[in-house]
């Protein structure tokens, strides 16, 4: 075994941390190797310095301050703690509040007022609305169907993009705080355009 591999064993040998068999092996090697003997003596000296730290004493004021801090922290913890019944009461209150919140459902919103149905003619281009304001002219009495029903190609088109071309005969001023729902039916039964007009005169 090379001296390098003996180093680890010598570091244990100087403090008696090796089993007997290995300790004898190290002792035999030290008898014949000056470099390892020097290493062993150096290790013994540094270990001696290390063990002097065992005798270190600390000013009693340090320990007194330590105890003061620990006891103050325990006091602070106990001062902030609730009695057990208070935790149970708080938990029960939370359960009651949660149950009440679940069972107390909000009132449903007022139904949207449907003032009429408009059938769109079937045509390849998107129809065009009249120039009347949306809050007034968007809804009218349904007119007679055209012979060529309109084909709305974009069922998700918004009311601002869809402008059916029709001439409303009557304009019903609709000034109402409640939202206004306009349903635009096309010849395609699967295509229905919903136009919601809110109180701010902005259709969407």
């Amino acid at each position, binding site marked *: 075994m090379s001296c390098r591999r003996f*180093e*680890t*064993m010598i*570091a*244990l040998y*100087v*403090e008696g*941390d090796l089993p007997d068999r290995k300790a004898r092996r190290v002792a035999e090697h030290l008898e014949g190797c000056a470099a390892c003997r020097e*290493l062993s003596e*150096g*290790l013994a*000296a*540094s*270990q001696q*310095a*290390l*063990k*002097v*730290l*065992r*005798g*270190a*004493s*600390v*000013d*009693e004021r*340090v*320990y*007194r*301050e*330590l*105890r003061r*801090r*620990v*006891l103050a*922290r*325990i006091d602070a913890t106990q001062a902030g703690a609730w009695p057990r019944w208070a935790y149970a009461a708080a938990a029960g209150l939370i359960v009651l509040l949660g149950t009440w919140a679940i069972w107390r459902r909000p009132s449903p919103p007022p139904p949207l007022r449907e003032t009429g149905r408009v059938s769109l003619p079937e045509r390849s281009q998107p129809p065009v609305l009249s120039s009347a304001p949306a809050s007034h002219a968007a809804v009218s009495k349904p007119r007679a169907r055209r012979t060529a029903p309109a084909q709305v190609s974009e069922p998700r088109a918004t009311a601002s993009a869809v402008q059916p071309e029709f001439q409303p005969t009557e304009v019903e001023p609709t000034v109402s705080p409640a939202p206004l729902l306009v349903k635009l039916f096309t010849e395609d039964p699967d295509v229905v355009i919903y136009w919601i007009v809110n109180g701010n005169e902005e259709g969407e």
Partner: protein
Amino acid sequence: MARSLNSDSGELALVMAGCWPDPEDGAGSGELRELVRLAKSGDLGAFEQVIILHQRRVFLTALRMLGRAEDAQDAAQEVFFRLYRHLRGFDESRGFAAWLYRVTVNVCRDIARSRGKHDLPSLEALVGLEEAATGAPDPSDQAASVQQIRIVQQALKRLPEKERAAVVLRDIEGLSTREVARILGSSQATVRSQVSAARLKIKRFTERFLRGRP
């Protein structure tokens, strides 16, 4: 029982416990068991006595691990606070020195990681070392001893965390390899390997420093 006791009462309690300077580690004395029993029932005066019995080993172990007295104070405070919280689960017929060492090592590791490394140990870390070195007959030898002690302190700080814990518990606290392995949650072979590496590094650092090449 009065909560705040002066040092005289503390020493009296230690004499009564029959465990000065090293408290029990296993079969505790009757006085110590009684203190623990009272502390478990909420007697803070008794708990303070328990702290007095173990404060030295906890504080000095933390000081060796962290190298700064302020950090060692914080660590020791945390260790004893945890002891108070877990006191109910302890069996007073058995000692909890091993538990204290384990928690001290863990707390020191957490503090060291959160605060980063420090270049040099504070001078407070060397309190009392001059007295420990007064065994030298010659003042110049005494000064050399103090210097060597300071160098060893610096060498300790440069060790990897696990090697430092192993060598502090084994060589400074004087615990057996088996006890150190149990405290650190390692095998004895691992502890021997860590202790061996630490001793070699301390020796090399010490020699380099004394030759003027730190």
